[in-house]
């Protein structure tokens, strides 16, 4: 009798394309670095502290939840650190540590884990964290107040707040080049436009985010802002200003494209992205908030399951 070898038995298919959640998360984080590193250079050690604190606390919250709920440890998939990193990108460099830690708690635990963990969250966890903090501690998200001690070689006011308070005449003070190269006040990773765009294009080419959402988001902003400007140029800023300020680019490339809370069919992706863009400009131009990206995306997250019902008919389907 020859000894039987123990073979691996599993079900078809026996090939896989090699993708994984971990690679997905790591590539998104890597691409985000293009936007974060200029922010770190600009704001120095305090920005480094905020980013580190945000990423590490997000991981620890996830680990703690894994332990308490007796689930397998899931920090290895990189999703928690991705949430932490994106969260830090939206914060001002001077955020106190407890704001950061509370924010990642809300994002990871309330935004993701209590819904059932990765894939089950109806809203983007980062934006859940962000929106709750913005409501709870409004002052810490007033960029002008937060960055009052910085005097960098640029207009040291938050463009969107400036616009809201002083009207459309201030737009001329910001050149497109300045806005693209990070010479504007804002979140740590939200101001260096070129970095966000390049990182985003990389992710689109690699297939880690869906171009349909990003493009329709930007188109939604552009068209809506243009319509406002044409209807009343005295009161409303142009589309380029809206595209390059606040969280617009971050929202288009990194936030609205979060897998679980966005649609997967072609037409729904376009509607979802455009909806985010339109709502953003509506909130900015006629709403009470300075920046509308966070709430616009959350609103479209809410509509996502409904929008995603617009779908092609399966083959062989008679009814």
């Amino acid at each position, binding site marked *: 009798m020859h000894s039987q070898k123990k*073979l691996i038995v*599993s079900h078809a298919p026996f*090939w896989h394309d*090699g993708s994984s*959640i971990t690679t997905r998360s790591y590539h998104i984080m890597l691409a985000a670095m293009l936007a974060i590193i200029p922010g770190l250079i600009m704001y120095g050690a305090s920005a480094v502290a905020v980013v580190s604190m945000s990423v590490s606390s997000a991981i620890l919250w996830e680990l703690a939840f894994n332990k308490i709920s007796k689930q397998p440890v899931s920090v290895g*998939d990189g999703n928690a650190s991705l949430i932490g990193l994106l969260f830090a990108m939206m914060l001002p460099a001077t955020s106190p540590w407890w704001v950061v830690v509370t924010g990642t708690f809300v994002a990871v635990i309330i935004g993701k884990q209590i819904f059932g963990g990765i894939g089950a969250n109806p809203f983007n966890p980062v934006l859940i964290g962000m929106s709750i903090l913005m409501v709870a501690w409004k002052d810490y998200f007033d960029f002008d107040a937060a960055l009052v001690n910085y005097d960098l070689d640029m207009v040291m006011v938050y463009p969107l707040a400036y616009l809201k308070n002083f009207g459309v005449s201030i737009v001329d003070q910001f050149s497109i080049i300045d806005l693209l190269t990070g010479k504007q006040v804002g979140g740590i990773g939200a101001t260096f436009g070129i970095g966000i765009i390049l990182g985003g294009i990389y992710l689109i080419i690699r297939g880690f985010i869906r171009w349909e959402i990003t493009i329709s988001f930007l188109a939604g902003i552009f068209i809506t802002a243009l319509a406002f400007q044409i209807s009343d140029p005295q009161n409303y800023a142009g589309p380029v200003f809206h595209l390059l300020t606040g969280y617009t680019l971050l929202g288009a490339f990194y936030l609205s494209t979060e*897998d679980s809370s966005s649609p997967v069919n072609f037409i729904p992706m376009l509607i979802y992205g455009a909806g985010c863009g339109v709502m953003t400009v509506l909130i900015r131009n006629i709403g009470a908030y300075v920046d509308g990206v966070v709430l616009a995306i959350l609103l479209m997250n809410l509509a996502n399951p409904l929008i995603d019902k617009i779908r092609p008919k399966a083959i*062989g389907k008679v009814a």
Partner: protein
Amino acid sequence: MIKKTFVGLLKPRLEYDILSATHTEPEIIPAPKKVTILSGTSFERSDAVQLKVGDKVKTGQKLVPVIDSEDYVISTVTGTISSISNYTGNFGRAFTSITIDTDDTEEIDEKFGEICNKPDLANAVDFLGSVPGGLPLKILNDPEKSINRIVIYGMDKDLLMTTTQFVVKTRTDLIIKGIGILKEITGIENITMAVPSSLMHNANKTGADVTIIDKEYPSALPFMIAKEVLGDYVPAGRSLEDMGICLISAEAIASLGAAYTEGKIPVKKVVEIVDKDGSKKYVSVTMGTPVSDVFKAFDIKVKDKDRVIVGGPMTGSSIYSVDYPVQADTDAVIIQDGSKVETVSDYPCINCGECVRICPSKIQVNILVRFLEAGEYQEAADAHDLYSCVECGLCSYVCTSKMPVFQYIRLAKYELANAPAEVEAEEETEAAEEENA
């Protein structure tokens, strides 16, 4: 293994292997010391078995292992039955497994030879149900199914394999004869050959209608071929037979031709062996030969934790023992090195949508899989297109979470197919109990 390309934005294109112009002849493996033959019915009590250990059998002899069963097998060697046992295959399919120790001299059973000069369907059903390639004669003989079109596929259903194409190329004459006999015994004139464009020349020679199959997976799966032939998709939940189509492998047609030409039932199957390094060889092997014998002939070493796959990489099945025999539908045997085996994970769906975008049936796989995970099979079938699935396995192939999506789908179909039977059985026992009371 085909990995995702750098430009992940594009959908992965999986292409069928096309038979190369310089293919090699199959190596012939001598009849093994022992063969195992699986018959499609299992036995519940040992007195239902009418074969005995120690019975002498001849090559080509018809064996009916279980009393009152229609299922029979053809002995592929001359020898002595050494064991008879039940065997359970994938999804609980029950078989009777008959092991035969081979004698040195081969004797051919004469029964088929006596009747083969005038082919008719009843005789074919009686003797040719398990020829290499597998002839679905029962379907053709079933008066309830009105088959009006036979499609012969000359393209392998799964990736990596080229066995069927090889047969089309090298046995065109036998296929022509087989088609002639098929027309004669079934009376069906509407016969189509479905082949890749490279084999169009061979297919044209057969005189059948020719349909060209695209080389992008999954265009050679049964439902996709039916779409090409019919011009429209088979309605969800219906089978090909419901549409009057019977799909037969080109190798089976060649076997049919060979059986009537040579006056004996063919027992040798062409199998493609794919080694760990991806190199491929054809072998001509007696059906029932254990896979281990085939590996030995090519000096392929099987190690612990390797994976041996019978069939193709997308839709085949892995086996737990290399004693598993080569059967009538075993077109390929693939061995994967243990270090390269990708396993599934228990991660949930992250809703990335890769499966939705690649699904050839346009199913909302991301929604479907949530119902399947929860065991809501009926809901999945009613509202989420479970029965539109053509079973290509691409959803599992691209799944970022490495979920066994394809297996969930097959399991759901299996469970649904068996559920009504269970309910009926329960009702019957209840009724019987009431009567007794």
